[in-house]
């Protein structure tokens, strides 16, 4: 009987933990279908008539809030900016980071470890520490307020991350597999492309996903280094909060929309994350 009591307690513990993490998300999802009035009611309403007004307003760029003037938002442009910045950053990171990770994993060269560590140390510096000098430099050389500049700065966050994750995966691949492929008559590049990269795919996928999330969620760099023309959703959402009104429904709706791409990407990449392909390849 004691086992049953334990399992019941465990069940409630799980429910509590899941509630703790999922409830805010569920409630925000809920809020995005409510009017501001319904959200601000003292006793929260559980049953209401869902409205798509927030979503339509977000899409069309203007929304009338009861009792206040019409509000204009540039959320659509922010969303496009976010996509450009995140996809751009991850692409550049993959292009530079994967070959670099391979080099660090396979070849021992003078100062290699130091370079790898220096790259990692970019992650130690608080963004606020470097943002002011960067801002000055970028204004000077005319890079302020461009996608290129932001994607470049985002590399400070994404490149070390990908480099260090993927490097570990490359190190786990036995060099003998690559040698075998070359002895078959393939060139070095073919063995890199056909053997090393496919075998490190779970690592590359996981690292790309993390990079995408970091880039998508970045706030400080985009706030300081860009105007509203290129700012992503994280910064754009600030505009929702005005002196005259805080449209909670609209904010909730913005959150739901901005979480969706990451969520979809995570689900899509999941199958690569669990691929334990290298198991059993080499006699251990």
């Amino acid at each position, binding site marked *: 009987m004691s086992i049953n009591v334990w399992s019941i307690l465990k069940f409630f513990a799980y429910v509590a933990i899941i509630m703790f993490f999922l409830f805010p998300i569920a409630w925000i999802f809920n809020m995005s279908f409510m009017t501001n009035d319904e959200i601000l009611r003292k006793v929260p309403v559980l049953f209401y008539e869902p409205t798509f007004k927030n979503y339509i307003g977000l899409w069309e760029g203007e929304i009338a809030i009861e009792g206040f003037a019409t509000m204009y938002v540039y959320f659509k442009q922010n969303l496009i900016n976010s996509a450009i910045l995140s996809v751009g950053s991850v692409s550049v990171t993959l292009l530079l980071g994967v070959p670099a990770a391979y080099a660090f994993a396979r070849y021992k060269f003078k100062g290699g470890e130091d370079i790898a560590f220096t790259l990692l140390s970019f992650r130690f510096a608080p963004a606020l520490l470097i943002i002011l000098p960067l801002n000055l430099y970028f204004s000077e050389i005319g890079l302020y307020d461009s996608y290129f500049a932001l994607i470049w700065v985002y590399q400070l966050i994404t490149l070390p991350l990908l480099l260090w994750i993927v490097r570990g995966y490359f190190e786990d691949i036995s060099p003998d597999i690559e*040698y075998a492929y070359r002895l078959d*008559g393939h060139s070095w590049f073919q063995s890199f492309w056909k053997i090393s990269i496919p075998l490190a795919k779970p690592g590359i996928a996981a690292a790309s996903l993390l990079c995408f999330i970091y880039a998508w969620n970045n706030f400080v760099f985009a706030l300081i280094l860009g105007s509203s023309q290129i700012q992503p959703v994280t910064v754009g959402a600030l505009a929702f909060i005005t002196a005259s009104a805080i449209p909670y429904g609209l904010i909730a709706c913005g959150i739901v929309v901005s979480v969706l791409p990451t969520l979809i990407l995570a689900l899509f990449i999941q199958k690569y994350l669990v691929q334990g*392909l290298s198991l059993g*390849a080499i*006699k251990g």
Partner: protein
Amino acid sequence: MSYLDLDNLSKSFKDDKIISNLNAKIEKGEFFVVFGPSGSGKTVLLRLLSGIMMADSGEIKMDNQIINELHPEERDVSMAFQNFALYPHMKAYENIASPLRAKNKNMPENEIHEKVNEIANLLKIGHVLNQFPKELSNGQKQRTSLARSLVDKPSVVLLDDPLRNVDAKIRFEMRLELPKVLKEFNTTVIYITQDFREAMALGDRIAVLYDGKFNDIDSPKNIYQNPSSLTTAKLFGDPTINNFDATIKKQNGFVEVDVNGEHF
């Protein structure tokens, strides 16, 4: 004229001389066994021959051409690795077909199919061609790796202790089967092992590697009966041969031996 000519080959790692001034002449079609205790540099030697490592000094000549500086893919050499080194993301079929796809870019698919099946049937792995390496037993992996090294009929096949990671029963079977299979290809085989039984059973000639060079190169029988040194003699035989200090004298037409005060 020998086919594969190793001339004063040396390789060291930092201050550690693994191979120093190694010489050998290997004939075409010969089954040449390199035998030595672990750590004697057998695998390093194979890596020098395959081009995975470059020699510090000395020459490797194949068919009268110096191949020292050639990349692995430019040498007409194939290799079966001790750890099999199969491509985990490809099925056994694609593993075996890999050399065919690389070297003969225009080989039609049906010819590849034919060749892969031929070698697979010869090595009795025809039924596992559609499986991934992780689904194969060690014996099957080892046969797949052998098939991959033989399918393109290379001039030289390097086998790095291929029977080490398979269980005793398969090892025994393969010891009998391997020479037959390899004879069909009429290829030069350099076979590495640290098991003297394997060396005795398989080799046309055995080269005994320790101290960085070949100390004996001879037929199995000659090495067994007339080892050049005590070290070589100790390497052959299980349990190892007994040895003791003795004084040998020739007196009155007899040979007399003194061992620890005992007189024979």
